[in-house]
């Protein structure tokens, strides 16, 4: 066997191994999606989505959990979005390269690495305890807002940086102030990218359990929340309690799969939307 041939064969084997590693990632995803859809679709129906749980949560639907998750995610994004976008504007437009920017960036990266259960502890000690918000939608939304802050900041900053410098130079040359430049030229150009970041933040807030366990979530509520100071049911927490803490858990397998499927479908459709939208944006970019 010639040296050259031997090297060819080694390469073929190596590439096969790398390829199979890549395929195993696809396969894992397929297995998870298959089991969740195959078993979950049996339980999901219009009634399942629009009814309250009945008979000690062994029958009925998940309507209050859907509403609760919606409240929490909306609250979180309303609090987080203005803070995150301002941070991103500051990082990318006003103070590029300064020491303070480096400090903030380390802060953002560190915040992104804090485990979600630690956010839950903060929420319990600060929002529930010190601020006396109680176990409530508001406390949960505030906790989730801090958790998704780094996600939206990073996405927004990337979107702002992708706007060409010539846009800013054009505006400044016409006599616009820095704020006018940012507001009328840079922000509109970066808006789609910023919004995809916001959607990613929402999808994260919908799926997180640990931060709302001690700050917002209720095992069961017979009515919908009436004020921001009410406890709520939430989809991810509902999945958790139905599968582990409900004494009748072995009778409700279908409901558990159904709830998980609804949560998964919600989160994945948000994320898929972002992926598709982003590809579209790249293709018809004007610069």
């Amino acid at each position, binding site marked *: 066997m010639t040296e050259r041939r031997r090297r060819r064969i080694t390469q073929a084997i190596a590439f096969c191994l790398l390829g199979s590693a890549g395929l195993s990632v696809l396969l*894992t995803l397929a297995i998870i999606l298959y089991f969740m859809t195959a078993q979950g679709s049996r339980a999901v129906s219009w009634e399942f989505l629009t009814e309250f749980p009945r008979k000690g949560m062994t029958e009925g639907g998940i309507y209050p959990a859907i509403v609760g998750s919606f409240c929490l995610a909306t609250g979180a994004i309303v609090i987080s979005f203005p803070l995150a976008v301002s*941070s991103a504007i500051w990082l990318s437009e006003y103070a590029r390269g300064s020491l303070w920017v480096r400090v903030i960036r380390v802060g953002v990266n560190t915040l992104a690495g804090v485990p979600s259960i*630690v956010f839950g502890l903060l929420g319990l000690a600060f929002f529930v*305890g010190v601020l006396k918000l109680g176990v409530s939608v508001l406390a949960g939304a505030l906790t989730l807002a801090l958790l998704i802050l780094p996600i939206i900041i990073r996405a927004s900053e990337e979107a702002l940086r992708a706007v060409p410098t010539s846009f800013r130079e054009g505006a400044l040359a016409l006599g616009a102030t820095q704020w006018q430049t940012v507001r009328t030229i840079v922000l509109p150009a970066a808006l789609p990218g910023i919004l995809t970041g916001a959607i990613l933040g929402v999808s994260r807030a919908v799926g997180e359990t640990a931060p709302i366990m001690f700050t917002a979530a209720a095992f069961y509520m017979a009515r919908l929340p009436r004020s921001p100071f009410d406890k709520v049911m939430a989809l991810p927490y509902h999945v958790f309690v139905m*599968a582990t803490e409900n004494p009748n858990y072995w009778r409700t397998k279908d409901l558990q799969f159904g709830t998980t499927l609804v949560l998964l479908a919600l*989160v994945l459709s948000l994320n898929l939307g972002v992926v598709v939208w982003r590809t579209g944006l790249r293709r018809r970019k004007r610069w």
Partner: protein
Amino acid sequence: MTAQGLNGKGCSAGADDSPSLHGLPRSLFRKRLDVVILFILSSASLIALGLIFFFILREAFPFFRRVPLVELFSRTWLPTLEPPRFGALPMILGSATVTAGALIVSVPIGLAAAAFIAEVAPGITKDVFKSAIEILASIPSVVYGFFGLAVLAPFLQSTLSLPTGRTALTGAVILAVMALPTIASLAEDALTAVPASYREASLAVGATRWQTIWRVTVPAASSGLLGAVILGMGRAMGETMAVLMVTGNSPQLTASLLKPVRTLTAGIALEMAETPFGSLHYHALFSLGALLLLITLGMNWSAEWFRGRLVRRHRR
């Protein structure tokens, strides 16, 4: 992740803060109101971080004042007994076991998948794999936990004929899947950050593409790859819901992968719900939180350092 790479490029418009740009003299405050407001709002993430450190430590402090630190590293966890025992060693080791088990699976697969995506896969295949990894990363942890509980645990129980399917092994497998996207996507970033000229030089002297990957690209990206692995480790260590649902949560000291274990995160989540606000047990759980925060942040900072070193080294 790519934002770092753009650093230092085209900073003329944003960084310029000279007053001559804005013409007529006005009062400084009115003129720069945008600067003042944005400056204040931009510190939100630092304030959030400050709140986390302050409140976790504040709530952990009463525990450290009443119980010596060494007690935390003893073997028995019986917080509700009289006198209570606060030995968190089983949970620390539980976290370590499950994380190590996860890495054994996810590091080779994650790095190989990253190399495939960055160096081998052609155009459209590459996009498919990258999207798959992104989707895998976006699945909520409670969904992974439920999958582990309802599908994987019964499967492992019957194939290995165990008394229970909720074991350290089940947790390790689920965590491996969860750490995989982190490791793969960051490792791919690291490989992509290696300058094309390295590969061109290697191919030009007659190396095959595989030899180029193995002997040139991977060594050049090594510190970034290490950073990716450490970040994956931090992610696995801090994961709560999935391990809480699948590892069985028995706070016993064990070296076996086939027995139930309890991790630090699961311990906090499980017991906080049953603990009176302000009790010694409550403060003990916050001290576990402080320990967890310390470990994961140490990992994250070292990972960022390794990842930054890759960029610094190859910049000209």
